[in-house]
């Protein structure tokens, strides 16, 4: 088992390298002018160019890339933000909490609402509950999170004044963002849970259980759900990736200082080191989460456990 974990962690490395290359390449298309950004409008052109040279901005792509990697891997030096002139990870770590809080809250709500309703829908297929859930879920999944966020702000912050509309002062600030992401993702969770459950219920072993005289409730939970849970968990984890992306836009709506806003501003201002650091960090966390999920999978499904122990 340990070997499997280590193997998976090692596999993350090429992925992270790839991510770095991708972002590096994209940012290199329009490199921007960090010298100017750091020194400001009034600095002389020579000073700017001198600084750019110092920063190594004018070196060829490959040199820059390799040097970046070298510093990152061997010195754990990811550079300094062009905007703040601070080591990038200061910013990243400061903001990571907010982003992950938003994302986790979102997925929490989506799961707590979507999965039970999805199960109910599947068990009572074609009933009124099922039809209602399906329609609502499809509607919810079609709602753009940023729009929902603004509507929620309008109702709950502006009109009712119950909740704050921006910032991260209190736990209350995280409620509206949670609902903003939670509702659309609850919609997709519901649909996905429903279809997985339906497929599982059709399996032969469920028929065997019924022929044994096992009560319906036990069949649902012990036989169907335990098997359906595995793909559900995987798909939930995968959509977490989308959630992280959604969090980016949500942060914008609610003016919350998270990784998303860091990346967006960084991209706008060509603050390449910040963008790189934040994206690599996100990719890394995402990879770790997928690994954890796979481990859970291995623990729950005896067939997979057998493959990886010893």
């Amino acid at each position, binding site marked *: 088992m340990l070997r499997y974990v280590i193997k998976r962690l090692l596999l993350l490395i090429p992925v992270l390298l790839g991510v770095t290359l991708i972002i590096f390449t994209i940012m290199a298309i329009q490199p921007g002018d960090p010298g100017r950004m750091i020194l400001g409008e009034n600095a002389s052109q020579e000073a700017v160019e001198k600084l750019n040279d110092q920063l190594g901005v004018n070196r060829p792509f490959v040199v820059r890339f390799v040097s970046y990697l070298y510093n990152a891997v061997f010195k754990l030096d990811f550079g300094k933000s062009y905007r703040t002139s601070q080591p990038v990870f200061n910013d990243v770590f400061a903001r990571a909490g907010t982003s992950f809080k938003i994302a986790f809250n979102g997925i929490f709500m989506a799961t707590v609402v979507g999965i039970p309703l999805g199960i109910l829908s599947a068990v009572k297929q*074609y009933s009124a509950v099922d039809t209602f859930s399906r329609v609502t879920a499809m509607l919810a999944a079609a709602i753009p999170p940023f729009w929902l966020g603004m509507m929620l702000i309008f109702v709950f912050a502006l009109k009712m004044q119950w909740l704050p509309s921006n910032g991260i002062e209190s736990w209350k600030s995280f409620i509206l963002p949670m609902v903003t992401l939670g509702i659309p993702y609850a919609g997709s969770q519901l649909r996905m849970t429903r279809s997985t459950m339906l497929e599982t219920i059709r*399996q*032969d*072993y469920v*028929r*065997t*259980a*019924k*022929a*044994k*005289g*096992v*009560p319906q409730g*036990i069949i649902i939970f*012990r*036989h169907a759900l*335990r*098997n359906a849970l595995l793909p559900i968990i995987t798909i939930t984890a995968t959509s977490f990736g989308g959630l992280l992306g959604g969090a980016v836009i949500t942060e914008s709506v609610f003016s919350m200082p998270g990784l998303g806003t860091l990346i967006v501003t960084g991209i706008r201002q060509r603050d390449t080191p910040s963008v790189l650091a934040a994206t690599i960090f996100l990719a890394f966390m995402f990879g770790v989460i997928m690994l954890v999920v796979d481990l859970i999978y291995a623990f*729950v*499904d*005896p*067939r997979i456990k*057998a493959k990886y122990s010893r």
Partner: protein
Amino acid sequence: MSDKLLEVKDLCVSYRSNDEVVHAVNGISFDLRAGESIGLVGETGAGKTTTALSILRLLPEKIGVVDRGVVMMNSKNLMEIPEVEMRDVYRGEQISMIFQDPMTSLNPVLRVGEQIAEALIYHNKEKKSRHEIEKRVEETLELVGIPKSRKNDYPHQFSGGMKQRVVIAIALACEPDLLIADEPTTALDVTIQAQVLAMMGELREKLGTSLIMITHDLGIVAQVCDKVAVMYAGELVEQGPVEAIFESDKHHPYTQGLFGSIPNLNVETERLSPIEGLIPDPTDLPKGCYFSPRCPHCRDICRKEHPGEYVDGQHRIACHLFTGEK
């Protein structure tokens, strides 16, 4: 009254979807004594599995409908008892069913012992303790020839034949009066098939269980069954003691076709001799005798009138060829 364990009378089952009605079973009647075994033979699509599912009321909800008919067991009509009773008393306890594909019949995430225990736990009128149930699980495993040490293994750790033994163990755990086996050996290779059948035979003798053996393999029927019922297009075209079916000179043309299509080891032929044509569309059954489009002895009356039954002792044939003679 009757010494019959199971009496099926005029059972009619159809599948209903939005566009069409599939007439799967069209008025079949047969019965079974305690300890007896009947082979239900026919091609795929004849309605054999539907019959079996109907007895246990396992048809898909809303889609599978029992149009009419009676299934008597213990002087009770199984079609009319409440679902709770069906589940608590009959399924898994008085009547057990095993299915065709052992690979998918077992829950992959539960231990084999747990799955056997489940049958016992939900039919635990004597309030056996957990310990007693465990003992019974081990007994059942040994009964089917699996060492009890494998109680905590998962299904994927067993081979196909052993999986089917586990399935049989589950079915027999509560010592049912009737076992319905839907092509239990079709998915297994021939040598394993022989083993499983032999084991089933032994267990039946030991426990006195009646058996409905659904199969398309006449060889199995000869080996295992006391009676045979030949099913075609949802009807029983011929039924009788196994000797009558295999040795009598009177047969329904379909049965003749079935026997005729078995290749003979001793005779050299160039081509197989199948029965010409296809089974009829169950949403659009032909008028008169359902077999008439394919029957080599078809006459005018066959196309117009549905045949009655010719009875010769225990041997019954539904064909104009014989009813006319009377």
